[in-house]
């Protein structure tokens, strides 16, 4: 027993020693050292050309590819104060996570460097946030460019579909999870971009929650013309799976085969959403050629 304990202890010591230099390694970054506490903010920073300045990101910061190389400083909503301080930040940017966590961040990190708290729940908020980040990082020119480009995209769609009446809009059901069935409700960014693209998000009927769980029967009654799949990874034959659900064969989208899997860009309230807006509108509005459009829907 004692022998084993000693051996385990020795192995542990060796492991700690071996991993030590790694922990102390400094990230040699010139200029402002930025920490991003959400995957969407990481994407915005890269859009602003600040990828090189990021010294720490939250988990799941996986886009663009370079972001995967940046050290992790905690999960989304679970920032690790010690890791953040260790990376000697010059600016910490976070989304609105729980108020308690924000308070902690401001108390512990506030004295060291500014903490920027942003809301990214709607497209407008994303545009505003980009400008706020640009201001804090001296990249206002690039920030304005992005804002202009994105605002133009929004205006174009608004002009095209803004005047559609409820009846003219295409009935869209978004499925975020299948067990239980979960959709996107009123106030969610997906609902916003669907209505911008001339659709009517059926999940809006479930008021009071962003990601409501609903009954199978409810979807049958909604009778959506398009079914969009997001959230978790689907099996290869997702069309088959959905068409064979009990009583779903009469749903219009199932009859016409307009069941489309959304790409990764739609999983995040980030800048990639703007680039997808036109494609989404095409997907929702096209009555024919589903297969071609569904391929188009996937992110590159």
């Amino acid at each position, binding site marked *: 027993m004692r022998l084993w304990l000693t051996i385990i202890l020795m192995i542990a010591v060796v492991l700690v020693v071996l991993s030590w230099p790694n922990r102390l390694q400094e990230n040699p970054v010139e200029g402002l050292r930025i920490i991003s506490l959400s995957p969407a903010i990481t994407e915005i920073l890269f859009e602003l050309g600040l990828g090189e300045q990021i010294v720490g990101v939250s988990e*799941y910061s996986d886009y663009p590819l370079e972001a995967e190389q940046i050290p992790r400083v905690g999960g*989304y909503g679970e920032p690790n104060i010690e890791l953040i301080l260790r990376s000697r930040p010059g600016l910490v940017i976070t989304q609105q996570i729980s108020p308690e966590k924000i308070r902690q961040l401001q108390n512990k990190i506030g004295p060291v460097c500014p903490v920027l708290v942003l809301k990214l729940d709607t497209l407008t908020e994303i545009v505003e946030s980009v400008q706020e980040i640009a201001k804090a990082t001296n990249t206002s020119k690039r920030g304005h460019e992005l804002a202009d480009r994105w605002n133009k995209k929004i205006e174009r769609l608004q002009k095209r579909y803004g005047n559609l009446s409820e009846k003219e809009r295409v009935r869209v059901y978004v499925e*975020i*999870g*299948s*067990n*239980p*069935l*979960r959709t996107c409700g009123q106030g969610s960014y997906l609902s916003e971009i669907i209505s911008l693209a001339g659709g009517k998000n059926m999940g809006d*009927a*479930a008021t*009071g*929650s962003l*990601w*409501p*769980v*609903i*009954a*199978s*029967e*409810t979807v*049958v*009654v909604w009778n959506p013309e398009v079914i969009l799949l997001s*959230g*978790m*990874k*689907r*099996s*290869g034959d997702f069309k088959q*799976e959905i068409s*064979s*659900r*009990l*009583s779903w064969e*009469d749903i219009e989208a199932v009859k016409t085969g307009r069941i489309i899997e959304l790409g990764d860009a739609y999983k995040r309230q980030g800048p990639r959403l703007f680039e997808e807006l036109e494609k989404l509108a095409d997907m929702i509005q096209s009555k024919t050629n589903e297969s071609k459009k569904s391929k188009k829907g996937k992110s590159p």
Partner: protein
Amino acid sequence: MSEKANRYTKAVGLAVSLAVVVALGLVLGPSGFCVNDWTIIKLRLGSVLLAAVAGAGLSVAGAVLQGVLRNPLADPYVLGMSGGAGLGYGLVVISGAVALGSWVLPAGAFAGALGCMVLVYMLAKTGQNIPVSTLLLAGVIVGAMTGALLMFIISVGSYEQMHDMVWWMLGNLQVTDWKLPLLVGAATAIGIVLAWVFSRELNVMVLGEEEASFLGVRVELAKKLFFVVASLMTGAVVSVCGLIGFVGLIIPHAVRLAIGPDNRTLIPVAAIVGAGFLILANTFAQVIIAPKVLPIGVVTAFLGGPFFIYLLRRRRKGVWI
């Protein structure tokens, strides 16, 4: 004669209430009142069937375990099934195996429950026997350990996965095809019939193992049989419906209070009452905040919690068995 007539009336009353509850479950749903649309009724029929199967299976499993373990706190999950099934489910979710098809989740949960059952059995076994106290302790410990592992999986999972797993732990009676409900229904039916056939032995075993062996019951064999039957029923239900709490605990107690502790009537009546209760709870969960759905486990616990407190208070006056 009047005794017999009384029983007959009670049986008819039970059948009628079940029919009413089933009818209610068919005509009422999240989209409101509906009697003429077969597409909708078919869907509700699936939910009602699954709720009935789950309610009956959990209630009978609870009744059997309360009897065998001679413990009023026993429920279908007391032998660690919940943790085992949850761990199997969690591993499937986190490993991304979900993408293989919709059957992977129930298969994973069932495998977890089964593995847990074998583990508890092996831990509890001393020589050729499985003493009740050891069985109970092994169940609780395995349940706690697997539960902790499940919590670990949840803590490292993404928000999406976390949400799905929490819903699973609160139970889910959503039906997407006929295959799974029918499969679970068949397994549960076999379990209920077995439990009913051997209810006489169960009655004797409630008296105590020594007494039972004096009365000619092969105690160890019977114990193993009841253990396997209850576990398989629970595992089958859990793999499709997730963890629906309280049904397996309160229904047997409620039925015992109403008609007495004789397992020969207790088991079939608990099956019917359990089925009816869960159908009703499910209808309630789907209708009350429509189009949103309440987790079924929240509804059963909300009804079950106060009832359980009442039972605890009542225990001071009477005996539970």
